[in-house]
């Protein structure tokens, strides 16, 4: 138990230090410490086994500890509204990544239209709140359903094509979505939709900075907590789905469609279920993004974001639920951290993905064996 708590505390300190270290020397020091913290369990099997056993035995403690750490993060970042925003963005990517992972990782449906479905969620919130004056909460709840409904136009390619061909169809879908959003009058064209009203909870507006336990937090801490809740619930749901008959059916048809059909699995039903559930969470992520940022426009949902979503899954671990969380928490803040490299950071980003695919194709946290727990 102590091992679990100490490990989690160490990770928390490293994360906070990594984010807040400003001077090059402090940053270098944290980078070295972080690399060492990763290298030790990677290189010494005994450490790895001890950690794995400890976390396996004290799952509840580990989860509670993780929750405390996640809730404590806005307090640690209270001086920096910007980093609170980035952390919130990472949580949105967890939500989106889990939905996308159900499609890409579990079912093998290469959906590169993630940005479009997030965009449908975001635009729905924008249209419903600004044009139709719906309450934001209601709009955020309806938006994922709209994403699922629009997704039905892709049912035919989902069922009739696979692999690269499906990827091409979904890429086309993102571009069509962007062209439409740029040209439709009612979506504001290239200007997008501005002044999307923010969420309110018991009269507390999410744009006002909260005071919690006597500590003044940046306004984005509101969204941080909301997105943390959503990301947690999403992760729990997708994990339970993954460890159920549905997850098994999807894995089986991903690996061998003919064998799956001869096992009595309805390919049509399984693929459509995975696609719709995935789009729901992707749309939910987009909807929360819209109320958080307060405006949506076509470039917020272009193909590049589909690739970021895909990288979250590849870096984290295809079909790995914890991998998606790790991938999102690394991939969203890290490029921000290296902003001082200016344009070179994109080069670095590409390099990291190439190296990952070469040396660790299963991801940083590869999918384990389904345990049915």
């Amino acid at each position: 138990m102590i091992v679990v708590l100490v490990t989690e505390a160490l990770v928390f300190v490293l994360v906070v230090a990594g984010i807040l270290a400003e001077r090059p020397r402090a940053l270098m020091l944290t980078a070295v410490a972080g690399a060492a913290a990763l290298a030790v369990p990677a290189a010494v099997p005994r450490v790895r086994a001890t950690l794995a056993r400890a976390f396996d035995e004290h799952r509840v403690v580990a989860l509670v500890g993780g929750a405390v750490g996640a809730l404590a993060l806005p307090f640690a970042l209270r001086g920096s509204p910007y980093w609170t925003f980035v952390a919130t963005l990472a949580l949105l990517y967890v939500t989106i990544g889990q939905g996308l992972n159900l499609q890409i990782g579990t079912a093998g449906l290469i959906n590169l239209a993630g940005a479009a479905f997030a965009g449908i969620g975001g635009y729905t919130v924008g249209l419903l709140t600004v044009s139709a004056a719906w309450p934001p909460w209601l709009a955020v709840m309806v938006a994922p359903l709209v994403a699922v409904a629009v997704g039905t136009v892709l049912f035919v390619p989902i069922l009739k094509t696979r692999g690269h061909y499906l990827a091409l169809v979904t890429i086309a879908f993102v571009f069509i979505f962007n062209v439409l959003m740029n040209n439709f009058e009612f979506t504001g064209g290239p200007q997008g939709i501005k002044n999307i009203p923010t969420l309110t909870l018991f009269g507390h507006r999410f744009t006002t900075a909260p005071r919690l336990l006597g500590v003044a937090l940046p306004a984005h801490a509101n969204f941080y907590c909301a997105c943390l809740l959503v990301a947690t619930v999403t992760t729990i749901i997708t994990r339970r789905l993954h460890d159920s008959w549905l997850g098994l059916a999807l894995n089986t048809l991903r690996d061998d469609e003919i064998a799956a059909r001869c096992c009595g699995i309805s390919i049509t039903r399984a693929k459509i279920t995975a696609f719709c559930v995935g789009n729901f969470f992707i749309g939910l992520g987009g909807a929360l993004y819209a109320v958080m940022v307060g405006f949506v426009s076509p470039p917020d949902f272009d193909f590049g974001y589909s690739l970021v979503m895909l990288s979250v899954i590849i870096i984290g671990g295809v079909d790995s639920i914890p991998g998606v969380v790790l991938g999102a928490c690394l991939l969203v803040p890290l490029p921000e951290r290296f902003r001082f490299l200016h344009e070179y950071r994109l080069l670095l980003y590409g390099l990291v993905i190439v190296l990952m695919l070469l040396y660790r194709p299963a991801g940083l946290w590869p999918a384990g064996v389904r345990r049915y727990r």
Partner: protein
Amino acid sequence: MSLLETRGLTVRFEGLVALADVDVAVGEGETVGVIGPNGSGKTTLFNALTGLYRPAGGDIVFRGTSVAGVEPHLIARLGMARTFQSSRLCLQLSVFDNVLAGMIAARRTGVLEAVVWRDRARAEMREALARATHLLGLFNPDLPARGWERVGRLPQIDRRRVEICRALAAAPALLLLDEPSAGMSPEETRELMKDLQIVRDERPGLSIVIIEHDMFVIEGVSARVIALNYGRKIAEGSFAAVVAHPLVREAYLGQERTHA
């Protein structure tokens, strides 16, 4: 009435006739062997029976309903399970996952139970895992202990067993085995014979159709043998009668030359 019956079953690929007018009947609890040279249509017969190929003519009646042209997963749910000549296991998934895949069609809990009301889903999973453990243990007492390992790490003979377990997990009425001894050494083939006897003992009412090239296996397990050549049924009867049949001898050995 027989469990499975085909009448004039015909399968065509473009112009090529892969199966022509094949009549096959399998009774309950019966084991039927299918032999024939390469390309004679044995696997095509299985693919047509399981719905992977749509018959161009004729009918397939399984458990009293016509299943010609029916989707494979619906035929499977009627109680037809099969193995494949070249193993079609999901090598990335665990041994248990592969066996449980056979039970998906008969699941009683859905998505809601998996996410919200979990007690029933968990109870069902526990029961399913217990059944998988039992099935694996029948063939090799060491297999259940390796249940959480990925199938790709098992030797060939154990993979074949897992595939048979996956088929049996669906509690089928008819089991189609497509050349189970393919790629096996003579010792492994003897092991396989024992495994087939285990299947027989475990499920006495199960009907089995087995494709085999190994005549030793066919002779050992099947009461009745059907011989195919060029997509046609050329002989049917006891093993001894079929292998002695002139058309069968001709199909395997070629035409006897008459010396003038």
